[in-house]
C-alpha cells in the first residue's frame, strides 16, 4: 500500500512541478508533512547531496524517499513515477510539434521562445557563478571589493575557458579535472 501511495505522490510531483529542480521543493515539503516518509532535515540534506551528485533534486529526493519507505525497489519505483508525467506529456507535445512545425504561428512562437530559452540558461549560469565565482556575503560583511571575488574559482574558470578553446576534448574531462583541482587546492 505504501508503495502505491509513494508512486501516486511522486507522480503528482512530476506532474505539477513545472520547471523542475527547485520547483519540486514545495511538493517535497508537503509530502514530508503528510506522510512522514522523510523529515524536513532530510530535504535540506538532500539539497546538499543533490549539489554534489549528478541528477536533479527531484530525482534524488524521490529515490531517497522511496528507499526509506520501500527499500531498493521503492527507490527505483518512486523515481520512475516522477518521470512518468514528463514522458507522457512530452510525447504528446512532440507529436503536436511534428504536425504543426511548419505552421506560421508555431514557427513564430519559436522566434520568441529561443531567446527566452537562452536567457534562462544564462540566468542558470549566473546563479551557479554567484556561488562558485563570487561571494556576496563576504563582500557585504567587509565592504572590501576583492572579497567579492572567489579568486581561486575565477582563476580556474579562466583556465577552463581557455582550455576548452585550445584543447578539443570532452567537457567531462574538464569536470573531472576541476574536481581534482578542487580537492588539491581546497576550494
Amino acid at each position: 500500500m505504501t508503495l502505491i501511495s509513494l508512486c501516486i505522490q511522486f507522480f503528482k510531483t512530476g506532474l505539477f512541478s513545472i520547471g523542475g529542480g527547485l520547483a519540486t521543493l514545495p511538493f517535497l515539503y508537503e509530502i514530508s508533512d503528510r506522510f512522514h516518509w522523510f523529515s524536513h532535515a532530510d530535504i535540506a540534506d538532500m539539497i546538499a547531496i543533490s549539489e554534489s551528485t549528478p541528477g536533479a533534486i527531484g530525482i534524488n529526493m524521490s529515490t531517497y524517499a522511496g528507499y526509506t519507505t520501500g527499500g531498493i525497489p521503492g527507490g527505483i519505483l518512486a523515481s520512475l513515477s516522477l518521470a512518468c508525467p514528463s514522458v507522457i506529456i512530452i510525447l504528446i507535445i512532440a507529436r503536436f510539434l511534428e504536425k504543426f512545425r511548419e505552421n506560421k504561428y508555431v514557427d513564430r512562437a519559436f522566434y520568441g521562445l529561443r531567446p527566452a530559452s537562452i536567457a534562462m540558461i544564462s540566468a542558470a549560469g549566473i546563479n551557479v557563478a554567484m556561488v562558485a565565482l563570487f561571494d556576496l556575503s563576504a563582500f557585504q560583511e567587509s565592504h572590501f571589493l576583492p572579497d567579492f571575488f572567489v579568486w581561486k574559482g575565477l582563476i580556474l574558470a579562466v583556465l577552463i575557458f581557455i582550455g576548452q578553446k585550445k584543447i578539443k576534448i570532452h567537457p567531462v574531462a574538464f569536470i573531472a579535472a576541476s574536481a581534482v583541482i578542487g580537492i588539491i587546492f581546497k576550494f
Partner: protein
Amino acid sequence: MAASFPAPGAPAAPGAIFMRFTIKAAGHIIEDINYERKAVNMNEILELYLAFARIGAVNFGGGYAMLPLLEEDLAKNKGWVTREELLDYFAIGQCTPGLIALNVSTFVGNKRKGVAGALAATLGFLTCPIIIILVIAIFMKNFADIEAVQHAFAGIRVCVCVLIIQAVLRLWKKAVVDRTTLILYLVIFFLAVFGKHLFFAVPTALLVIASGVFGVFFGKGGQDK
C-alpha cells in the same frame, strides 16, 4: 473516429478541440508503438540508452547544466539533434510539467527513435542518479559533509559555470537574431536573475510562455530556412 467529432467549420468549444487533439495524439503514439515494434533496431535503442546514461552520470548542477553535454555528445559528435532543436526543447521543457532534464531527454529520444527512444533516453538519464542515491542512502548518509567531497564539488561548480557560459555563447547566434530578440533576451534575463531581489519572483514557466506568445504576435518566422 472522425465521424464522432463536429464537421469541419462547425464551431467547437476549446475543451472539445483539446480533447480531440489529445485523442488524436494518443492515437498517433499507439500507431507509432505498433509500427516501432517491427522497425525498432535494438542496437540503436541501446546506443540511445547508453548515451543518456553517460550524460546522466556527469550531469552535475541541474537541468540547464545538461545543455553543454547534450551539445557535445548529441549535436556535435553524433548529429542526432541540431542546436536549434536543443534550444526549442529547453524552452518547452521549461514550461511543461516535469523536470527539465527528463523533458529534454524524452524529446531527444523521441526525435531519434519515437516512443521506444523516448523511454530509452529517459531511463538512461535516470539510471546513474538512482544508483548513486541508493548507494548514498544505504552506506554514507553524511556524504555531503565529507570535506573532500565539498572541495571537489566547489571545483566542479566552477567548471559547470564555464561550460554553461560557453554553451550560451555558442548558441547565441541561433536565438538572438535581431534587435527584437535581443531586447526579449535582456528582459527575460533581467527578470530571471533580479526579479526575485527587486520585486517578486516571476515563475520561469510564465516568462517562457509569455515570450512564446510575444513571438506569435511580433515574431518573424522561417529562421530555420
